[in-house]
């Protein structure tokens, strides 16, 4: 027997590039009031989802007999992120093309749930903890409800306990927590998993030949994807920028700062 692992991946604007533009004060929104306009920002796989693939590969390397499928909603055949997934070692890549502005997270979750159902289910579903563009992180939980699967969030590491269960170390604000869950289960992966690998040359060569399975929403039996949550506007927040730099030698700056904080009663003694 072999466990089917399905990793859900999203294509996003490179958040580091977005952040660089933001820090330089050059991040701008287009005429539609919603879309970032910088054409030089590359589109990449959501880094947390890439860590989902990494987690799947590590389960395989640890000896779990499994197949790894990577599915993405909102990309077309020939998608670079799916090629990347194949180069990393995905056995199967699946594209569900869709203009994402025509639906919301619930719609995305319904498509993923319909895909999982129609493709024979999965023992383990791995997702990034959130997408780095909208930061919502709600799709895994919604899929979990639609398929009645438990959802373990913000994993640092996972280990297969045979084929029927997982042990997951979760990152929590109180430190690490270890949990066990029976499969089928959904696990969301956090950056604490560690840096994902790069594809090997051989992996890249093999990926060139790999074709994505392309599935349309209606063939999955999903209709009426009309959103209840609609992006009306996006804007760049005003930065405070009122920082007062306190100068002098280290000793002088320290004295001036503490005097200021005491004068303003931020410090009481």
């Amino acid at each position, binding site marked *: 027997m072999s466990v089917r692992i399905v990793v859900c991946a999203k294509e996003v604007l490179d958040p580091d590039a977005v952040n660089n533009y933001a820090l330089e004060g050059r991040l701008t929104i287009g005429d539609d009031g919603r879309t970032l306009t910088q054409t030089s920002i590359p589109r990449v796989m959501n880094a947390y989802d890439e860590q989902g693939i990494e987690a799947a590969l590590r389960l395989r390397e640890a000896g779990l007999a499994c197949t790894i499928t990577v599915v993405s909603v909102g990309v077309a055949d020939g998608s670079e992120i799916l090629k990347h997934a194949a180069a990393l070692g995905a056995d199967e890549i699946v594209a569900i093309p869709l203009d994402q502005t025509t639906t919301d997270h619930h719609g995305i979750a319904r498509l993923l749930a319909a895909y999982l159902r129609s493709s024979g289910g999965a023992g383990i579903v791995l997702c990034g903890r959130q997408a780095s563009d909208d930061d919502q992180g709600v799709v895994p939980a919604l899929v979990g409800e639609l398929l009645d699967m438990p959802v373990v969030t*913000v994993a640092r590491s996972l280990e297969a306990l045979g084929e029927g269960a997982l042990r997951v170390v979760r990152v929590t604000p109180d430190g690490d927590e270890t949990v066990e869950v029976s499969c089928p289960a959904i696990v969301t992966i956090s950056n604490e998993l560690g840096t994902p690998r790069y594809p090997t040359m051989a992996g890249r060569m093999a990926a060139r030949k790999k074709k994505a399975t392309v599935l349309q929403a209606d063939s999955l039996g999903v209709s009426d994807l009309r959103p209840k949550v609609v992006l009306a506007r996006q804007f760049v*927040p005003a930065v405070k920028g009122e920082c007062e730099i306190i100068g002098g030698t280290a000793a002088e700056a320290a004295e001036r700062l503490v005097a200021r904080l005491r004068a303003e009663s931020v410090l009481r003694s």
Partner: protein
Amino acid sequence: MTGVVVCTWGMGRAGGPPAGTEELLTLARKTARALDSKLHWLVLGPLPNDAAAVAGRYGVAGIDHVADAKLERFQADVHVAALAQYCRAKLPRLVLVGQTHDARLLAPRVAGRIGAAVVMNGMDVARAEGGGLQVTASAYGGDTRVAYDLVGDGAFVVGVNTSVLLPEPDGSAAVPVDTIPVDLSGVEERIRVTARAVTEGPRLEDADIVVAGGRGLGAPENFRLVTELAAALGGMAGASRPIVDDGWAEPFRQVGLTGRITRPTLYVAVGISGASQHMVGCAAAKTLVAINRDPEAAVFRYARYGIVGDCLEILPELIRVVKT
């Protein structure tokens, strides 16, 4: 469809409501008024100390209390079931939860179960021009803001980042507490915790002064300077994620998106560049001081006061001055 519900579980400082409750109630009261409807506060599990008094200060029409032995501590399946049953019975239009780690799972699961729409990272909920609700949220790790229209007559669940809000008490009415029955007898937790995260002693969330260190400290042993300054100020030491990952500081000290959300009077960021993921955890500080060698560091954009220089030279001086 009736009203706005704030849902909380667990306790905060001294057995009181969890951190952020008063901020959340402030936003919920404003939203309820805009919708011309009532605000209810739903407590899952043990009632926090002073809940009725707090409710009275924030215009809550009634506390709805769901008590069950299974709700003593957070368990996802049980809490989701309890809130979903409540929503099916009371049909709230809008459910607001403070965005803790647990809420990040609970909110979308409840939404999925009752067929509601969900938005996380909320910073404001207001009436849009067309009369519907609009949620302002953060995106791109805080680099942008987004406004989402909530379309239709259905229910909505919104996770709110309370660290960006201020509490505004108003009045002191007597608030009734209603016990709401739910049936959790058939709910078995599917996730078994085999090793719980342990925290003891004071919590960063409750600290009035936080001194936090990052990579700019240069070496693990220099975190001691952060701890010393924190102690001299009567506060707590915090840390950025990279140095927690590298073992320079204990995990419970981590501030930011994957760590603690602090709301101190004074936050001193030492050798921290100011990545948005970190700033999420200290944006609510009343006064933010940044010490960094790089005058272009993003942290200075958020700070009230800044010192540009080597933190290894500045920290000993600060410790000396504070002690005198």
